[in-house]
């Protein structure tokens, strides 16, 4: 059994299988936000690993192969961005403004809330970059004294939160413009929010991809300052 679970085949097959099941459930369930495929698939994989008694390190032999594709997938976000180019170009300044305000608000609120709830400075550094894409968040968390593994998990969960609750919250505050919806999902919930925005509308997806990239950059540049100011 152990020999079998430590081959890449196990992790890759389990992940793709869980995603396939989760995706079908989501379609059958009328695309209910709580059935968001990435959330259900994570739960399925965790359950299978638990039942089969397989450790995370063993699973990652295969899981890492899929994580590797996040690189080219991030590069590929240039494609929807390019398609929406003409409608973005004229609005670069308001977009930049929105991203700066949004990513700073996300970081500052996170740090303040962690402190109010009795968290350590280490936890502040771990959680502060969670609205940036996973690779950026991991690098930023570890370079400011946070815990890389927890940063990765919390970042993914923040993305899932955006996919699950983002469209509803935006509707509740009366935002129907696909460009603003995309921007907000990209800033607050990076790649997972962006894939949700892509499902909603191509224009929303393009703005989300742009927002994700810009918010990753602005989070990288501003996080040391935000931590120092609030520290």
């Amino acid at each position: 059994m152990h020999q079998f679970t430590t081959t890449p085949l196990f992790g890759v097959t389990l992940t793709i299988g869980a995603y396939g099941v989760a995706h079908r459930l989501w379609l059958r369930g009328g695309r209910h936000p709580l059935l968001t495929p990435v959330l259900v698939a994570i739960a399925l994989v965790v359950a299978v690993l638990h039942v089969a008694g397989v450790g995370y390190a063993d699973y990652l032999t295969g899981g890492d192969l899929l994580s590797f594709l996040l690189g080219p997938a991030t590069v590929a976000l240039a494609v929807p961005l390019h398609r929406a180019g003409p409608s973005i170009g004229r609005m670069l300044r308001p977009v930049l403004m929105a991203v700066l305000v949004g990513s700073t608000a996300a970081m500052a609120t996170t740090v303040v809330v962690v402190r109010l709830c009795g968290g350590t400075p280490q936890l502040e550094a771990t959680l502060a970059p969670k609205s940036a894409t996973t690779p950026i968040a991991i690098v930023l968390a570890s370079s400011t004294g946070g815990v890389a593994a927890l940063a990765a998990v919390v970042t993914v969960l923040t993305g899932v939160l955006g996919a699950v609750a983002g469209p509803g919250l935006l509707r509740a505050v009366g935002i129907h413009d696909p460009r603003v919806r995309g921007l907000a999902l990209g800033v607050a919930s990076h790649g997972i929010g962006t894939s949700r925005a892509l499902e909603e509308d191509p224009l929303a997806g393009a703005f989300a991809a742009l927002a994700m990239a810009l918010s990753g950059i602005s989070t990288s540049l501003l996080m040391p300052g935000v931590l120092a100011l609030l520290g």
Partner: protein
Amino acid sequence: MIEGLFQLLMCQLVGTLLSQALHLPIPGPVAGMLFLLAILTVRRPGVEAPVMRAGGRILQDLPLLFIPAGVGLVTCLGLLRHQWLPIGAAMLLGWAAGLLGTVFASRGGLARNASDPDEGQ
């Protein structure tokens, strides 16, 4: 598909090299995305070009690629159990602040453009 994937990987490679050589605070894949965007802007390939098709295809199942990192949850159960309040509260409120902050800040500029009849073609 293979040619398109190759081009995506090459952009990531160039982005990573640039990011390291110039000590940019941007990770390689994000620099690679900006690099590919620059190429697409200059060369304007059609929707059937390999890089456009491979890019569109890989993005269709983007959520799949986040699953392994999310499963990392199982390695942090202890920390999560002890610190669930600050972690949960900061996640929820920090996320909402980012979302609503973006919406609030985009009111002025984007709202003006939204009423422009030439928009969104």
